[in-house]
C-alpha cells in the first residue's frame, strides 16, 4: 500500500521542481519558486489551471482533400511544429496530459494522411483531456481514428476488427481481460461510422444493432453501449491507472499501487482531474525514492532544454528535429501501441546523442553543426547564463551556485563529492573565493558547469 493521502507540508523548492518536472515541460527555477511554499494541493491546482488555448493552424478547417501526395505531406511538418511550438512556448499541464493521451489513443499522419484530421483528433482529446469516458466515446467516431484503424471500412455484416481489437487490448482493458469473441461482437457494434469532411458521422442504418454479447452482457448494443460496458470492468480503471502512474510517477508500480489509483478512477467515474489532483499531491508522489525514477522522453528532454535555459521562442522545427533524431517523431508513433518509452528511450547511441545535443545547445548552436540556435523567424538566440543563476539565492557564493544549478538540472540530490568535482569544473583552476557573478568570465564558467551536469547520465532522469 502506498500512501495516497494528501501531503500537507508546504512545497520546498526541490518538491516544486519534482512536481513541475513531472507535470509540465517547463521545470524552471522561476516556476518552482513561485510554487514553493504552497501546499501540494494548491500547487497542483495552480498547474492544472495553466492551460493556454492553442491556436489552430490556418488550414485546420480546410477540406481534407489534396491534389497529390506532396500537397498532403507538406502539412505534416506544419502539424508537428504546431503542437511542439505551443508546448515550447507555454507552460501547460494540459499539454503534458496530451502527451500521454497522444501515446494512448494513437494515430499517425502517414496512415491518416490528412493533417487536418490529426489536428481535429488532437483538439478533440485536448477538450476532454481530464475525462476518460468522454475521450473514449469521442475516439470511436474520430475521423483520424476511423482512418487509422479502418473503422470507416467496417461494414455491417462484415465488420473490420482492427479498431475492436485495439479498443480492448490497448485503449481500455489490456490483454487477458476479454476474449476473441468480445472483439468480434464489439466490432459489430462499432459499425455505422463514415467520415464526412472533418467529422465522423454515425448512421444507425449502417450500424449492426442486432443482439450481441460483449463482456458477458447481452443486448442490442451500439457503440456507446460498448463504452459503458467496457468502463464498468474493473480492469479498465486498472489499465488507465497503470498508464497514468507510468507517465507521472514510476515505471514499475506494484500491483497494489495500481489498484489504489484504479479505485480513485472508479470513485470519480473516470473523471481524471480529481485523480491527477490526488495523485500529484499525495505522500506517495513525493517519496524521495521516486524522484528521478523515470527516464526523460525526447519531449521532456528537448522541450526541457529550451524551457530551462530560457529559450521558449526556440524554433519548433529544431525541437521536432531533435525529438525525431531521438526516436520520437511527433504524431508518428511506431505503431498503435505508441512509444514504449522509459528504458527503451535510451541506448548506447541515443545517450551520447543526447549529451552532444545538450552540449551544443549550451554552446548556443544546433547539434552537429555550427548553426546558431534560432527562433522561428531565423533570429539567433542567446542563453543568458548569468540571468539564469541570478534567479537563485546566494549566487555570490560559488558553492551555492553549484548546489542550486545541480538542484535545477538533476532530479536527485548530488553528493558532496559530486559537487566538489563540479565546483572544480566551474572554477577551472581559479580559487573559489574569486567567484564573481558579474565578472566577464562568469557566463563561460556557468556554461562549463551546466555542460558537465547535462553530460551526466542522471540528467536523463526525471
Amino acid at each position, binding site marked *: 500500500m502506498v500512501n495516497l493521502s494528501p501531503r500537507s507540508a508546504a512545497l520546498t523548492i526541490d518538491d516544486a521542481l519534482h512536481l513541475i518536472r513531472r507535470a509540465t515541460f517547463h521545470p524552471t527555477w522561476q516556476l518552482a519558486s513561485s510554487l514553493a511554499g504552497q501546499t501540494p494541493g494548491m500547487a497542483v491546482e495552480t498547474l492544472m489551471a495553466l492551460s493556454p488555448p492553442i491556436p489552430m493552424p490556418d488550414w485546420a478547417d480546410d477540406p481534407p482533400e489534396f491534389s497529390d501526395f506532396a500537397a498532403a505531406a507538406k502539412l505534416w511538418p506544419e502539424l508537428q511544429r504546431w503542437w511542439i511550438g505551443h508546448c515550447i512556448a507555454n507552460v501547460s499541464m494540459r499539454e503534458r496530459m496530451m502527451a500521454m493521451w497522444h501515446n494512448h489513443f494513437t494515430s499517425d499522419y502517414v496512415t491518416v494522411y490528412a493533417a487536418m484530421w490529426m489536428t481535429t483528433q488532437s483538439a478533440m482529446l485536448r477538450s476532454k483531456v481530464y475525462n476518460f469516458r468522454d475521450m473514449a466515446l469521442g475516439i470511436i467516431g474520430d475521423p483520424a481514428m476511423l482512418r487509422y484503424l479502418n473503422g470507416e471500412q467496417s461494414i455491417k455484416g462484415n465488420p473490420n476488427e482492427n479498431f475492436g481489437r485495439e479498443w480492448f487490448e490497448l485503449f481500455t482493458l489490456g490483454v487477458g481481460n476479454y476474449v476473441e469473441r468480445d472483439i468480434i461482437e464489439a466490432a459489430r457494434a462499432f459499425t455505422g461510422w463514415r467520415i464526412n469532411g472533418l467529422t465522423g458521422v454515425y448512421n444507425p442504418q449502417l450500424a449492426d444493432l442486432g443482439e450481441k454479447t460483449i463482456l458477458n452482457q447481452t443486448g442490442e448494443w451500439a457503440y456507446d453501449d460498448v463504452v459503458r460496458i467496457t468502463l464498468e470492468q474493473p480492469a479498465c480503471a486498472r489499465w488507465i491507472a497503470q498508464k497514468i502512474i507510468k507517465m507521472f510517477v514510476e515505471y514499475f508500480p506494484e500491483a497494489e499501487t495500481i489498484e489504489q489509483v484504479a479505485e480513485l478512477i472508479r470513485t470519480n467515474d473516470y473523471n481524471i482531474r480529481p485523480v491527477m489532483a490526488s495523485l500529484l499531491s499525495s505522500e506517495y508522489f513525493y517519496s524521495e525514492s521516486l524522484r528521478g*525514477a523515470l527516464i526523460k522522453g525526447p519531449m521532456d528532454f528537448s522541450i526541457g532544454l529550451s524551457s530551462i535555459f530560457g529559450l521558449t521562442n526556440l524554433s519548433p522545427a529544431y525541437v521536432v528535429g531533435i525529438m525525431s533524431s531521438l526516436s520520437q517523431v511527433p504524431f508518428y508513433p511506431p505503431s498503435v501501441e505508441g512509444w514504449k518509452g522509459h528504458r527503451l528511450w535510451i541506448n548506447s547511441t541515443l545517450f551520447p546523442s543526447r549529451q552532444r545535443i545538450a552540449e551544443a545547445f549550451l554552446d548556443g548552436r544546433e547539434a552537429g553543426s555550427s548553426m546558431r540556435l534560432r527562433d522561428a523567424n531565423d533570429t539567433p538566440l542567446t542563453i543568458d547564463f548569468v540571468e539564469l543563476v541570478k534567479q537563485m539565492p546566494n549566487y555570490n557564493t560559488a558553492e551555492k551556485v553549484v548546489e542550486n544549478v545541480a538542484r535545477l538540472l538533476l532530479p536527485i540530490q548530488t553528493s558532496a563529492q559530486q559537487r566538489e568535482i563540479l565546483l572544480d569544473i566551474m572554477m577551472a583552476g581559479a580559487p573559489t573565493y574569486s567567484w564573481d557573478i558579474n565578472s566577464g568570465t562568469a557566463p563561460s564558467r556557468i556554461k562549463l558547469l551546466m555542460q558537465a551536469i547535462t553530460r551526466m547520465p542522471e540528467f536523463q532522469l526525471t
Partner: protein
Amino acid sequence: MNRRKFIRSVGATGVAVATLPTIVDSFAVKALAGGGTNLERLLGTSDRVLVLIQLQGGNDGLNNIIPVSNSIYYENRPRLSIKKNATLPLTDTLGWHPALAGFRDLYDSGRLAIVQGVTYPNPNRSHFRGTDIWLTATDAEVFGTSGWVGRYVDTFAPAFPDVLPPHPLAVQIGTSLSLGLLGPRGAMGVTFRDPDEFYRLVNSGGAIEEIPATDLGDTPAGREVEYMRNIARSADTYAAVVKQAADAAIASTITYPNTDLAGKLKVVSQLISGGLQSRVYLVSMTSGSFDTHAGQVLTDDPTQGAHAALLRELGDAVNSFMTDLKNKGLQDRVAGMTFSEFGRRVAENGSIGTDHGTAAPLYVFGSRVNSAIFGSDPDLVNLDERGDMLMQNDYRDVYAAMLLQWFAEPSSLAQNVLYRDFSSTAVPIFDSTVSVAETRRGQTFGFRSVSPNPASGDVSINVYIDAFEDAGIDISNVQGRMIRSHTVDSFSGSASFNVSDMPSGTYVLTLRSGRFIAHTLLQVQH
C-alpha cells in the same frame, strides 16, 4: 574427412577430449567445438556468432516457399499466387519465389535450412504483441520484460553491471534498442548504425571529467541511475572497442548490393572479421515493411511488387554476406536466422494483399546448417477458425536449436533462457556440437575412464572432480539432443548406467560440476 566421421574416429581411438585443458578467459567461459576438421579447432574457445534478421510487419510465408502443386493455394490467391513455372524449383511440391534466388543458391550449396510452419500456441495477430512475444520468447499470454538474447548473453557476464565484459555481448545495428537485447539486469548490448559514427558521437564531447554516481541503493530511482550509468559506461567502453574492430577488419572483396539490409550485414561482417567478440548481432530490415495488406504484388505480374522487392533484398543481402564471410574464412563461425512476428492469411484480401496470419517458414543460414526442410508442406486444409495455418514448429524449438546445438549450451541453461525445456523438440538444424573441456590450468577435472567403450550394456565411469562438489553426467546424441542424466557419486568420483536401451551410435557424455564442464564420447554397439 566429414565431420561425423571425424567424431566417430575420435571416439574409436579413445581420445578423451576433456583431458586436454583449454585456457579460457573469464568471459568466453565456454570452449566449444568450432566445427573444424582438426583437434585444435575442436578445442578452440567459443567464437560462434549468431545473426538475427528481423523482418518487420509479418512476412507472407506462402509467397516465399510456394506450394506449387496445391490447388487450394491457387484457389485462395487468384491474384497473388505465383505460377509453378515462375518459381525456382525446390522440391516436387514446393518452389522458391523467384526473388529468393539468393536463398535458393544458399540452399543448394548446403548453407540454408528452412523451418516450416513456425509460430506458437494461441498466436497473436497484433504486430507489437507478436513482435514482443518473439523477442521475449514467452508464451502468448505472458508479458515479458526482458529479451531471450538479453537473458542468454547475461549468463556470460556474471559480474554485470559492475564489471562490463571487454567486448559487447550483443550488437544491434540500428538506432533503437530492441527489447530482445534487454537482459534481467539491464541493456546487454550496444546499438549503433555505423562504427565510426558511434565513435564520433561518444568521443566528440569536450574533455570530460568523470563525475561518479551517487549510490541511491535499491530504490526505484537508484535502479534507474544504475541503468543510465550502465548505458553510459557501455557506450564509453564499447565505442572504442567497436571502432578498433572496424579498423582491424579484413576488407571485403565483394560488392554488397546497395540496400539497407546488405549495408547492415556488411557492418556485421566487418566487425566479426575485425575481432569483435559479440555473440549475437541483431539487424532489422527497415527499408520497407512486410505488412502487405495492399499492393503486395503488381496486378499484371504477381512475381513483382513490394513483397518481391523485400524478398530480393533479403535473399541477395544474406547471399552476399555468406560469400563475404567465406572469403574471409569466417563462414564456419557464423549462423543466422530470420524471424517475423507472423505469417499471413491463406486467402488473399480484396486489396491485392494479405492480412495478418500465423505460421510461416523461417530461414537459418550458415555453413554448418543441415540444408533441409524441417516440417512438411503447408497444410491448407486444416486451418484455424480465422483461416490461418496451424503450428508445425514452435519458434522456441528454433531458439533452442541455437542455444543447444549452435552454442552448445546445456539444456538447463536453455531452459532458463526460454523459460521452458525445449530440448526434446529442438529442431535438428545443426549437424552436431560437442563442447569440450572448460577448466583452469593445472586443475584436474574431467573423465578418467569410460569402460567398456564401445559398450552394449553396463558402463562404468570414473571422473576427476572436486570431492565436495555435486556432479552429474548428461548423455546426448551427436545432434546435441539430451537423452538422459545420471548423478555422480562425488566422493568416489564414479557413476554407472546401462545403455542396452540406447540405439547403436555415438553419444556425447557431458560431465558438469561447479563451473566446470567436460565431454567425452561413448560408442554404443549392439
